[in-house]
């Protein structure tokens, strides 16, 4: 084969790549993501206005309910289909986080409860937890220092 540089080849295969359908994908993500958030808001409103729970507790309950629904949908094999359709629309909300924990837990059940399920359960969500905790700690520290400085 005639000599070809890596750069030359890259231009060739990038040219051939099927074009990403940005508008279509963004619209789907927007609609499904928006729908999940609207359902969450609905649950929140019901908890506050009908069940009479205070707002801080209600938002925690809302998260729990959404995570529960997503876990059930993952177990039934529905959430991955939603994900294939909606992309980031169903990955970004808290339901996506639930899906990323439940799916490896199910997948690695065959390797046993210790070396499979429990060892692999955070294989996808792990980085989110690690960096989530790290950044929230840093933000907390900054906020604390800011308050001390203000008080002076």
């Amino acid at each position, binding site marked *: 084969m005639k000599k070809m540089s890596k750069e030359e080849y890259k231009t060739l295969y990038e040219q051939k790549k099927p074009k990403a359908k940005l508008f279509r994908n963004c619209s789907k993500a927007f609609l499904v993501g928006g729908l999940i958030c609207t359902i969450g808001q609905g649950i929140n409103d019901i908890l506050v206005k009908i069940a009479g729970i205070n707002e801080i507790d209600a938002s925690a309950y809302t998260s729990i309910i959404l995570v529960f629904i997503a876990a059930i949908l*993952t177990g039934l094999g529905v959430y*991955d289909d939603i994900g294939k359709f909606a*992309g980031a629309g169903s990955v970004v909300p808290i339901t996506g986080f639930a899906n990323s924990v439940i799916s490896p837990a199910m997948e690695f059940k065959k390797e046993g409860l210790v070396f499979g399920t429990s060892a692999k359960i955070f294989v996808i969500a792990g980085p989110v937890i690690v960096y989530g905790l790290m950044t929230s700690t840093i933000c907390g520290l900054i906020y604390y220092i800011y308050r001390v400085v203000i008080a002076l």
Partner: protein
Amino acid sequence: MIKKGKQTYQFEKDIFITDTYSVVGPKENEGPLKNYFHKVFSDDLCGKNSYECAEQHMSLTAAQEILKTNYINPDIYIGGDLLNQIITTAFTARQLNLPYWGVYTACASFGEAIQAASICIESGMNSAMISTSSHFSSAERQYRTPLELGVQRPDWAQWTVTGAGAALLSTNDLDSNGIVIKSITVGKISDYGVTDVDNMGAAMAPAAADSIITHFEDNNVDSSYFDYIITGDLATYGSDILISLLNKNNIDIKNQHCDCGALIYDTKAQHVYSGGSGAGCFATVFCSYFYKLLCNRKIKRLLCVPTGALLSTTSSQQGESIPAVAHAFCVEVK
């Protein structure tokens, strides 16, 4: 065995492919080749506890059917698959009680196995059985993400074929099909710096191009000599790149070329992205569709170029690019 040119070997004996057997899962049976497969499992777990066991069951079924229908005890069994330490093939061999070699060049394993088996027969063995297999769900959990994780993959990604293909090579033409392996071209590794693990078509196309050009040069033939030039699993996107790469080398195979990854699924209707891939892709398509065409004398000369992307999850996470290889063999009807 005569060495021709740089990497090609022509056989002096007649090495017959006397029988093949293909086993696939339900999704492959919804594709355009559904009437050609020998056996279809309607459940991709095959009634087993895990996808790994299901893949072994498919691989074993293909091998046992070959042995059963041919009343033969091959001198060697050579095979490969995609799972770590090629467990599917080793566990198949555990049940067969035959001398065993395991080969691995990912999706090009079928080509490597055919080449090794042909050399064995040329060197004095009487018969050899080969098989390769892959399973969408076992490959997915090893290479990618859990099955139930809701993520999108790009349009140029590929779908691993669930299935196994086995072939019997022999010095005696048991079924008088007259299908012989004429020559083989052992592939070299091509690596053009592709690091995207979803982009196997781009990673493998240069390897296929290199093996095809080398085979043409070594044998002093051109594309018009063949009825078909079949690549393993470049799928629609990779095939497109292959045609352009060969055009740049003044070779036109557009009329002869087809790709097993693009053939096995209806790429528009079956949500398989760019097409099929996996060690079972070339194996099932060759052992069913193309073998039948050869048996019926619809085609007479075939250049087979299974392609393999030799990455692992470790190498790709460490930022390594994807090396690829294509092992070519020429099949003719006598």
